[in-house]
């Protein structure tokens, strides 16, 4: 039919068009990041297998040094096994994060979608984000916990609330940018309904920054959990969390540094790993 026949679908591009996320995780940065994050996550998931003790079992053996028989990482002031408290603490943090970050992301995205409907709504949503950002987070944490009572719920809510503007702003920008892209126009001209244009075309292309943000948000979540524990409005004791163990260890920082070491190293590994992954993702996506 046409005058030109092409050599069948061109030459295969040398760099296989791998999915950027997979490529990011396969990069050197991504691998180191995973190597730091995965063990922590695994430790949390496998806590019941790794712990050997109940994290709440107390004994007379206060502040035993690491390497004490039966207590690999030593014990805390109430004679609880620090390894058990660490892995269960990770587990608790993971539980909170797994709930809070997606919740915040979801709400943020919903607001962003709402903002995409009309400029007036957009302004309102933007101001609402401003308001959330303007509120001093820890004061809010104190108030929310006072209202709801202590436990996981206020921690989850405070973290989620802190994440809403982050995700919302990102996605809003993404939608605004992608909406003007030619492929979106092409989809509209191609007869796709506004909803389909949004869900099938714009959203998939606007989510990349969100994936990076998730890595950042996880860091923030650990941060907030710790601060709330320190202010005494964290997860209900005696449930260990990284932040709770850390704040319990503060009086003994000079005399029994091993008490704080576990959670500190864990949090550092987590944050370093996540930031490396975020960076790797960023690089691949921008490419």
């Amino acid at each position, binding site marked *: 039919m046409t005058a030109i026949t092409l050599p069948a679908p061109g030459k295969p591009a040398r760099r296989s068009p791998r999915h950027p996320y997979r490529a990011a995780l396969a990069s050197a940065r991504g691998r180191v990041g995973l190597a730091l994050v995965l063990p922590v996550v695994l430790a949390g998931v496998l806590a019941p297998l790794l712990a050997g003790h109940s994290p709440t079992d107390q004994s007379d053996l206060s502040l035993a040094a690491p390497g004490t028989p039966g207590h690999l990482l030593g014990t805390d002031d109430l004679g609880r096994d620090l390894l058990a408290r660490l892995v269960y603490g990770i587990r608790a943090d993971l539980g909170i994060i797994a709930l809070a970050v997606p919740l915040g992301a979801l709400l943020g995205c919903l607001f962003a979608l709402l903002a995409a409907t009309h400029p007036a709504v957009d*302004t309102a949503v933007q101001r609402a984000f401003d308001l959330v950002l303007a509120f001093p987070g820890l004061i809010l944490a104190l*108030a929310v916990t006072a209202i709801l009572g202590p436990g996981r719920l206020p921690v989850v809510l405070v973290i989620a609330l802190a994440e809403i503007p982050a995700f919302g702003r990102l996605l809003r920008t993404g939608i605004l940018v992608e909406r003007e892209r030619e492929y979106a126009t092409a989809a509209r001209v191609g007869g796709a309904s506004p909803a389909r244009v949004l869900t099938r075309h714009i959203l998939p292309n606007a989510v990349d920054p969100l994936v990076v943000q998730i890595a950042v948000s996880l860091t923030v979540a650990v941060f907030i959990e710790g601060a709330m524990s320190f202010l005494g409005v964290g997860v209900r004791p005696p449930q260990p969390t990284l932040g709770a163990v850390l704040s319990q260890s*503060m009086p003994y920082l000079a005399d029994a540094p091993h008490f704080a070491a576990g959670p500190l190293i864990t949090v550092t590994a987590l944050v370093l790993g996540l930031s490396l992954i975020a960076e790797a993702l960023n690089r691949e996506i921008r490419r």
Partner: protein
Amino acid sequence: MGIRLLRRLPSALLVLLVASFVIFSILRLVPGDPATSLAGPDAGPETVAAIRDRLGLDEPLPLQYVHWIGGLLTGDLGPSYAIGGQTADLIGDGLGATVELTLGALLFVVVLGTAFGVLGATARRGWVRATVRVLTTGALAVPPFVTGVLLVLLFAVVLKVLPSGGRVSVLTAPDLGVQYLLLPALCLALPSAAILGRYLKDGIERALAEDYVRTATAAGVHPRRLLWRHALPNALPPVVTLLGMQTGHLLGGAVLVEAIFAWPGLGQLAEQGLTRRDYPVVQDLLLLLVTVFVLVQLITDLVHAWLDPRIRWE
């Protein structure tokens, strides 16, 4: 520029109005009662009732709200319920301390953030970049309450070169004041400096890859000048926005740091006010913080426009 400000004003006022409402409601939702807190541990119900009456806590909530806002508008913040003294004085004292702390921290954020960003983006030696990365990660990963305690242990207890806490106003005794300010400001600044550094590093890397840097390189401009004169000014506007946001975080994060360093600022006042259900103090304080945040956003906007001539002329 004035027009930009004017245009943002109505929505800023709206934010404040909504904020006042939210603040008021949240406080009333918090259980506990300023009167019981005020009456003391072994007071009888009649004492509590008398105090409630005196504080006007039995008035309908909308009326209390109106009174509060009315007081604000007429500049009369009234007495504090539980802490003692006039709310305006309490907040005034705390504000001075917190502003000092925040500015000190901001200085650290800018200096450290710039160092982190510039070194991270341009250092030729791998170990320099690795060190910067470890430092920034550490600053982000170690919670401020741990950093704070560690800093105190190191500088105040072991080395004995800086005080462990407390405050002397930098204005009344600059040499002493600075020594009191150093540790809390550093502790408060570290996470923000790390974030800023990361953004700046990104921005510089991106700017260095831009065509105009290539143009300047081709013209024989020295790499150092490329960085400071060509790349950095372009990396700044988003960083300024971030800095604006971080100022909000610094104000909010002061709660922790002020506690650790016994810094008598707004964070401590807020926590104290909230624990003792001192409604006027907490209400006014939170609204003040929101106002400051909104103002900082406005300023950020102006600085942004000033830094980026494209916006300036729009």
